[in-house]
């Protein structure tokens, strides 16, 4: 099975109004080529789930600055001045979720769990509107799973079956979002032959991946 396609196929998979999960931590480990494609397509009303909104001119940050997103679910917007500006103007809805909670909510959706029971956020604004539960004498929040229509995954290396390897800190959200979307698209720095990746070091099994595109990093 060869899942490698070109950007025209990726284009046909993306639409206005979709919920996208996008990998990356302040731009490290983000599929930049697909970001550029979305900007070129000028998609509108996207809901973007991601760790942070990066910088104005880098990765996910560009989608914010370009007005492609109507909502972002993230842990941090402070490095992108456009995020705060658009939030204050009312053109961007921002749902802030603590980083550890955010990744567990994505993992829960991808792992068939009904929610996350976390102590993080108890006694803070984060608990607003959420169910609380007392277990073994300690208070926890119940945080709900997060799913997406499409996950946009960066990989350092991928084989045509979709097995992914992430170098350094590019891994971050990538292997988790690959569990939690209807369609999983990988943009890779390098496409290697099947058999080049040792099964022990595969970080996302190819069975989770639907499409692969070779990026230009």
């Amino acid at each position, binding site marked *: 099975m060869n899942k490698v396609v070109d950007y025209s196929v990726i284009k046909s998979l993306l639409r206005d109004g979709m919920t996208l999960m996008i990998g990356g931590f302040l731009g490290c480990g983000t599929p930049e080529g697909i970001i550029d494609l979305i900007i070129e397509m000028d998609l509108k009303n996207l809901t973007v789930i991601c760790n942070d909104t990066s910088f104005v001119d880098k990765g996910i940050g560009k989608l914010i600055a370009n007005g492609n997103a109507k909502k972002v679910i993230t*842990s*941090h917007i402070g490095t992108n001045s456009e995020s705060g500006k658009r939030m204050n103007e009312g053109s961007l809805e921002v749902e802030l979720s603590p980083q550890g909670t955010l990744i567990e909510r994505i993992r829960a959706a991808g792992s068939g769990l009904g929610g996350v029971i976390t*102590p993080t956020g108890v006694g803070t604004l984060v608990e607003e509107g959420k169910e609380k539960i007392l277990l073994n004498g300690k208070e926890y929040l119940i945080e709900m799973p997060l799913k997406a229509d499409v996950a946009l995954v960066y990989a350092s290396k991928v084989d045509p079956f979709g097995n992914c390897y992430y170098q*350094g800190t590019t891994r971050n959200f990538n292997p988790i979002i690959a569990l939690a979307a209807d369609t999983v698209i990988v943009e890779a720095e390098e496409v290697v032959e099947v058999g080049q990746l040792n099964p022990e070091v595969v970080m996302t099994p190819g069975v989770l991946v639907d499409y692969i595109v070779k990026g230009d990093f």
Partner: protein
Amino acid sequence: MAVDAKVAKEIIAKRVAMELKHGQLVNLGIGLPTLVANYIPKDVYVTLQSENGMVGMGPTPEAGKEDRHITNAGGQYVTINNNGAFFDTAMSFSLIRGGHVDITVLGALEVDEKGNLSNWIIPGKLVPGMGGAMDLVTGAKKVIVAMQHTAKGDLKIKKACQLPLTAKGQVDMIVTELAVMEVTEKGLLLKEIHKETTVDEVIKLTEADLIIDENLKVMDL
């Protein structure tokens, strides 16, 4: 005691570094806390975590030797030691929330005598988001707030935080250029002061009530 910000930060970083014990896993927040790494004693081996996905974080790479696949939680290029490990964000926060991080050092907008911390939002003004701070403060075994004692004259160590909280009652210690304070059940215990300040000055610059330790010491920097 009047010192400029640079000197103040150096005092704070040096004093916090003395809290680190051999073998510990430590997370240093962005900004001032990062400076702590420069003052860790040679005979104390600590492992630094970066919440974006590594333990064993090493120093900044030499110019020209940056690897764009290796960045820290502030988005800057870093290195990894040869005993380090990379992992995904879920694992990173398993370490954090699961109590495997021995010490987290963070800055604060406000901190209070009950160990409450505010450092992620000034409603209507500044909304950066909490990033990993809420998990770190909730999960780490010991939470140290490292910050200048006051901000442009405003008192930051409060009776009760006015800004939205990062976490409730999780702070263990506050280190400023003037003093070292421990959060106890009875309130804030003043344990050490800088040699160039006085208890009276510290009290004056602290909104919270201070209990003066009977073994009050001068910071041994």
